[in-house]
Each structure stands twice: as C-alpha cells, then as structure tokens.
C-alpha cells in the first residue's frame, strides 16, 4: 500500500479550565513540529485550537470537553488533525455559527468562521447531546 497510514499515536487533552488552553496549544505545537508544519501553518493551527477550546469552555455543559490530536498523512503530505469533542447542548444552526459575526454569547462571533479560514479542513458534527469539531492542517 502506498498511501500512508494514520499515525498511530493519538494524544488527548482534557479541557476543563482555562489553564488547559496552554496544554491544548502545546499538544498542537508538538504535533505540528512532528508533522513538519512550517511556523505560519502551525501558528494558524494552534490559534484555531485556542478558539475551539474557548468555545468548549464557554458553551459546553460544565465547560468540559476533550481534544485528541493525531498526525495524518495523505498524498505524500503530513498533517495534523485535532478533534474537539464536548457533550454540551450542541449548535442548533451550524451554518449560522460558521458565519462571521454570529454569536449567542454576545461576542464577536469569530471563533468558528475564523478557525475555518485558518485550517485546511474544518467539519462540525453536532446534536443536542454534543459537538465535535474536527480540524486538519496540512504541511506543504
């Protein structure tokens, strides 16, 4: 098989307090370095991770969730995939939430749409029992 396998090592970070923001950034930075992402790309990924973590702290029930980070490989490129999961109330209107300026928290509403611009792939799977946002950043 020529196509690479997903990197087996998956690192998880529990998200429960603001201090975990730093752990999230560290985990994403470590994975970015491993995958050989450049400084700009890793900064974008880490920043997106920061935004998504903040959303969990703000909107998920009890402000709790999990990040799992893994290295991915396809088409001869290395990348990093971060999966942010929470079992909060979910996002009723994902399209709206992905639009600049939409916020139910009286904020700028930049986190989700901004994160989408910062990574190569962003998908949201959400239901009333929780939300999973997956981001992938590819190296070049």
């Amino acid at each position, binding site marked *: 098989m020529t*196509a690479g396998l*997903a990197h087996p090592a998956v690192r998880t970070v529990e998200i429960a307090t603001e201090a975990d923001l730093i752990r999230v950034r560290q985990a994403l930075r470590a994975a970015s370095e491993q995958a050989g992402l450049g400084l700009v790309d890793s900064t974008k990924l880490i920043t997106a991770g920061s935004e998504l973590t903040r959303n969990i702290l703000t909107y998920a029930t009890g402000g709790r969730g999990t990040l799992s980070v893994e290295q991915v490989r396809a*088409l*001869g490129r290395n990348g990093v995939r971060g999966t942010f999961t929470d079992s909060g109330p979910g996002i009723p209107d994902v399209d709206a939430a992905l639009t600049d300026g939409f916020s139910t928290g009286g904020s700028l509403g930049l986190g989700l749409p901004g994160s989408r611009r910062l990574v190569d792939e962003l998908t949201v799977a959400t239901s009333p029992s929780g939300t999973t946002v997956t981001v992938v950043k590819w190296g070049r």
Partner: protein
Amino acid sequence: MSDDGTRLRVLEAVATLVSDGIATLDPQGVVVGWNAAATELTGYEADEVIGRSVSLLYTEEDTARDLLATELDGSRGSGRFETEGVRVRKDGSRFRAAVVVAPLTGADGELTGFVKVLRDVTSRRADEAMFNALLESAPDAMVIVDPDGRITLVNRQAEIMFGYHREELVGQTIEVLVPQRLRGRHVHHRDGFFAAAQVRPMGVDLDLFGVRKDGSELPVEISLSPLDTDRGRQVCAAIRDVTERREQAERLRRQRDEIMELSTPVIQVWDRVLALPIIGTLDSGRAARLTEALLEKIGELQAEVVILDISGVPTVDTLVAQHLLKTVQAATLMGASSILSGVRPETAQAIVHLGIDLGRLRSRNTLREALQLALQIVRDRSSAMSEAAADVAGAAW
C-alpha cells in the same frame, strides 16, 4: 354471480397453462390444488400432496422456524409475500426457489386460502455465478449497492483495497468505505444518483477519498453504473486507487508553484523599502505564499514600506482585491506601510464598485511615483527616529 368454487376452478385452469409451479392452499396451508408444473418441479404428484401441508417442501431448518406461518401471515398482512430460498424435492434433492404467496378472499372479503407460485431459479444462479466470475476478474475494486445504500456484493480487489473481509461489508451501507468527514454529503449524492442513474464517473473533478478498515484514507476514482436486477435497481461502483497518480499531480503542481514564486520575487529597492511586483493571476494558495514571503522579508530586512505593484495582474476581482487587502493588513500589523502601484483606471473602478475598503492604503499610478512616496515616508520616519532616540538618551541621563 360467482361463488368461491368457481373462482378456484378458474384459478386451476389458469394454473395448468403456466410453467411456474402453482399450489392453492386452504387457510391453514394445506394443499388443495397442484398444477403439472409443480409436479415437474418437485417430483410430487398432485394426489401425493393434496391434503398435506405445503411445508413438506421445506428444509428442516425452515420447518423449525415455522416458515409457513411467516409466509401465510406475511401475505395476509401486505397482500403479497415474496421470498427466495432452498426447497426440497420428493427425492430429497434441493433447488433454489423464488416464491410468491398471495391470499385468496371470498366475496365478503373473508380469507378462503392462498395461492403459492414457485419458480426454480437455480439456473439464474448459474448466471450469477458467471457474473461473479466476471466481477472477480475485474482489475478494479467493485462494490454493488442497493437503493438503500447497502452493499450487496464486493469482489476480491475491494477486500484487498479496503482491508475488509466480504462478510464484513455485505449488508453495511456503502458509507463505511467513505471517510467520516465526507459521509453526510455522500448519502445525499448517493440518493441523487439512484434518482437519475446513468453511467458516469463520480464527482467529476472532485478529490474523492475512501477509508480502509484501519482508518487510513486513500484517494480514489470511482465510476458508477446502474445495474437493473430482478431485485430492483442496484448500482455498481468500480473503484480505483489513484494514490500514485495524485501524488504525481501534486508534485507537478508544486513544481509549477515554485516556478511561479520564482517569477514573483520580493525585491529590496531601497534601504527598508520592498517591492512586490505581482504578475499573473492570484489564487488563494499563491496569494498566501506571496504574503508569507513578503512578511518574512519585512521582518528580516526591517522594511518600513512595501510597494505592491499590480500592473501585471490581468484582472482584479473581489478575490484578488481581498487577497491584497489581507496582505496589506498583515504588513500593517507588523508595522510596515503599504503603497499600491500600477492601478489602472478599470481596476480602480472595479475596486470601488466592489465596495472593497482598502483603508488607509495609499496608491500611486506608476512604480516610479510609488517609490518616490516610499522614500519620502522613510525619510520622515528616520528623522522622527533620531529625535526619539535623542529623547530616550535625554531621559536616560
């Protein structure tokens, strides 16, 4: 006015004419009529079966799970019950039968019995065997899917490509072979294909991916064709692993990009003044790389002014204007001023009509004028800088 007896006799008359085995049953499943084709099919003469339960054709397993009740109740429920399974002849040999059971009702709608039609499909199985052989010899992975999206058949290549045994795949929806992130969209497209089926490649110009059992992904190319079978319309997907082809295309693309980049260098035109002559169209990827290269140079050379010359850009549409705007904003955040040069009248019109706010961006018609402005800015700043240095020195004393 026709009584129930007449109806049954009409039915029996029809039964003698057809080549399918037909049995008429009473409400309990006891045989009351048996045509010649049924004898030919099963080896039982009419007088051997009339008065006995039709379940004498069943295998032991089917008898044990009370298939008779299933068939009769099923047909009564929906007016028709169809099944396919193995039946046993008088001599003990087995055959594969397609079975249809329908209830018979009297004039007042009460149940008077059933009619059961049996067809030997063992020979059709032979066609299927040939089809399977064909499937197995195909060079591509082949997956056949029913309208609900369930996999009904796969070949050996599919097993190898995706790392599953066929028993694990048959009965699953086709989406097990599609990466999680693309599944929702896939279900949607799949319904669309069944609605308007024709032979076609899937997702023309799309980057398609499959996912193996171990979770790894592979780029694929898929060709779809509808397959009308007696179990309804199915779709046959021929799947090809294009990892190598995509990698090659990717390499070519990167080489092309590198050549493009070389043709658009960031030039230091003066101390702390950079120029970026943009030539050709700007797509997102190229714009991102140009911006990065420019910002790196700003940091490296501590450049204070950047001239973005767009005289070589054929058309400035919303997208190009937005890329330019982002570059200018990022340069501003770093502390460098930007000057746009080479704006043609039609470009100026486009930018204004598009309602794009280029903010505090200064613009000059020609590169020469832009350079003059840049030097002016640098001069002003350096005099302010020496004054500031004097302040700090004074304060430090």
